[in-house]
């Protein structure tokens, strides 16, 4: 079993210190607050949650851009901190805003060359060959038309393809995709998701797909992790989660999503009141309890719910499923 695990995250915490006037300690923003999960070789996993729930911080910590405050991340069984720069060539990063993710003053060739040069990959000729290879793979073809272009000459979809090309140019094992399609037009979104899917299958990549939009999830990943206020509240295979959401938050999230249907205009949706809590002073007990209509007084507001497994492979942190 263990050797299937590509990335193991154990009790991960990432807190940011908040200071006033630059030196007076105010408190900690608990962006990631005790998170456990595994990603297997060649598996696509989705992290879903609202903005400010810590999913982007989690992505950056997985990428090694942030040092964990507590807990550890193991890549192929080794601690991330010990892997150093080599790890950077093992993980690719796809960001939300494709235009912003590309240095505007570099052309396509230079953009793809950067990771190779920085990681001392191959000879000059080999690099050129590799660049053409990835451009073919993300279908920025004919390659000669694109290789000298600057990002602003590409459309949004093409820019995102280039970002994906850059993410896989080092032949990584893991891809972290943080909202890769949320800034694109609906018509292009599908195109990019399909590309990500084909890249993942072709290279047997582990993918951490981070999104706030559940409707795209079923087209891409195998498992979903639902995050709320810096914690993972539910983990399940995609179909299982959509059919049978267990956590009240997941239920609310699924209820809030509309499929295009003219009937929608004639009915109200049930939405939990309030806004997600501040991560500076999160509520005690279950973090969702102030908005939860099933909250059990004396339990949910006091004790942090542990992870239960009501059906095999379906984990939920909620006292209702004890």
């Amino acid at each position: 079993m263990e050797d299937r695990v590509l990335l193991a995250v154990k009790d991960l915490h990432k807190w940011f210190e908040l200071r006033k006037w630059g030196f007076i300690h105010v408190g900690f923003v608990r962006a990631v607050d005790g998170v456990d999960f595994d990603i297997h070789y060649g598996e696509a996993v989705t992290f879903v949650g609202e903005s400010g729930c810590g999913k982007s911080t989690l992505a950056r910590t997985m990428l090694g851009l942030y040092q964990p405050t507590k807990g550890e991340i193991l890549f192929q069984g080794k601690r991330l901190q010990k892997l150093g720069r080599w790890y950077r060539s093992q993980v690719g990063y796809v960001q939300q805003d494709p235009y912003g993710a590309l240095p505007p003053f570099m052309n396509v060739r230079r953009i793809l060359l950067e990771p190779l040069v920085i990681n001392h990959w191959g000879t000059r000729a080999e690099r050129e060959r590799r660049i053409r290879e990835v451009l073919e793979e993300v279908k920025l073809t004919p390659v000669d038309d694109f290789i000298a272009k600057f990002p602003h000459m590409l459309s949004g979809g093409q820019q995102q393809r280039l970002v994906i090309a850059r993410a896989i140019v080092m032949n990584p094992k893991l891809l972290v995709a943080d909202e890769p399609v949320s800034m694109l037009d609906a018509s292009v979104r599908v195109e990019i998701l399909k590309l990500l899917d084909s890249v993942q299958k072709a290279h047997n990549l582990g993918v951490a797909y981070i999104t706030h939009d559940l409707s795209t999830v079923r087209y891409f990943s195998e498992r979903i992790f639902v995050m709320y206020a810096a914690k993972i509240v539910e983990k399940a295979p995609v179909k299982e989660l959509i059919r049978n959401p267990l956590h009240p938050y997941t239920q609310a999230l699924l209820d809030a999503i509309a499929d295009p249907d003219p009937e929608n205009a004639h009915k109200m949706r049930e939405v939990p009141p309030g806004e997600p809590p501040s991560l500076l002073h999160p509520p005690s007990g279950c973090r969702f309890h102030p908005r939860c209509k099933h909250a059990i007084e004396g339990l949910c507001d006091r004790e942090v719910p542990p992870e239960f497994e009501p059906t095999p492979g379906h984990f939920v942190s909620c006292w209702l499923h004890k």
Partner: protein
Amino acid sequence: MGGYVDNIKKAQITEQISVQVYQNPAYQSYTTEELRKLIEQKVALEIKRLGLDKPFIRFDSLYGFFHSRAFMYLINALTLSLGRSEHIYSSSGSKQVWLIIKERLPYSVLLFTTASLLVFFASLYVALILSRRYGSIWDRLSVALAPLSTAPSWFYGIILILIFAAILRLLPFGGLVDIPPPENRIMYALSVLKHMVLPLLGWFISGIFVGVYSWRTFFLIYSSEDYVEMARAKGVPGRLLERRYILRPTLPTIITSFALMLIAAWMGAIITESVFNWPGLGSLYMAAISQFDTPIIVGLTVIYAYLLGVTVFILDIVYAIVDPRIKVGGGTAA
């Protein structure tokens, strides 16, 4: 360093003392040789008193630096003990640097504060009108004229003197009042005003075009902010829109630029005043330069530094008053 100025100073001192000694009846009975010795002694004493025996500046060691004259001047200046001038007197006959500066200050303030206020408000006002009429002939003219402001005010001063004083003989070449000064107070004021026209005009020309251009551009940029669009959609009338949605949010920038303009005015004064022979701090500076009057030069430089410092400090306070976002201090930093 300071070598040739020192030699000039020493020569001046020697000459001064020689004259004193030769003219002093007390020394009439002295022989030439005795007189020579006496003068040498006195000169040495004076040099020591002025600190000219110490090097002007030294970097060979920390000790050397702290005992150099430059450092001495610096320390005295920073504590505003500006000391006594070497050659220049105030009109009341004092050699106190502080008094001399105090006497000149009002003239500089009169001219350059007037000039700055004039340029500042005129350019803001015109720019607002132009930004309302984007693309009109006047607007395009303002863009075309903007490069005129590339030259500093003294430059225009020279050109204006050429036209209005030399060729047309309408206005004076420079100075504060007519010579002799009119007895009547009103006539005196009018005469001063007449002498202010050209320096003001020079300052105005060198500032107004770029002022109008950059404020116009600034307002145009800010008038495309989302909240300005929103206010326009709400039907906020033009003038109110400008005041509440363009001027008000950009007040910190406007205030900063006014402060920076004042600073620039004080610096620019040095040359403009000397071109127009205006008896303010700038001319004093020039006079001090030509007479190598170090205490005055150092004193003025320090006054300038303090002016800048105070401006920057006031700016910080004004910011906090004007912008509600600053009141919360660093609390917004994550």
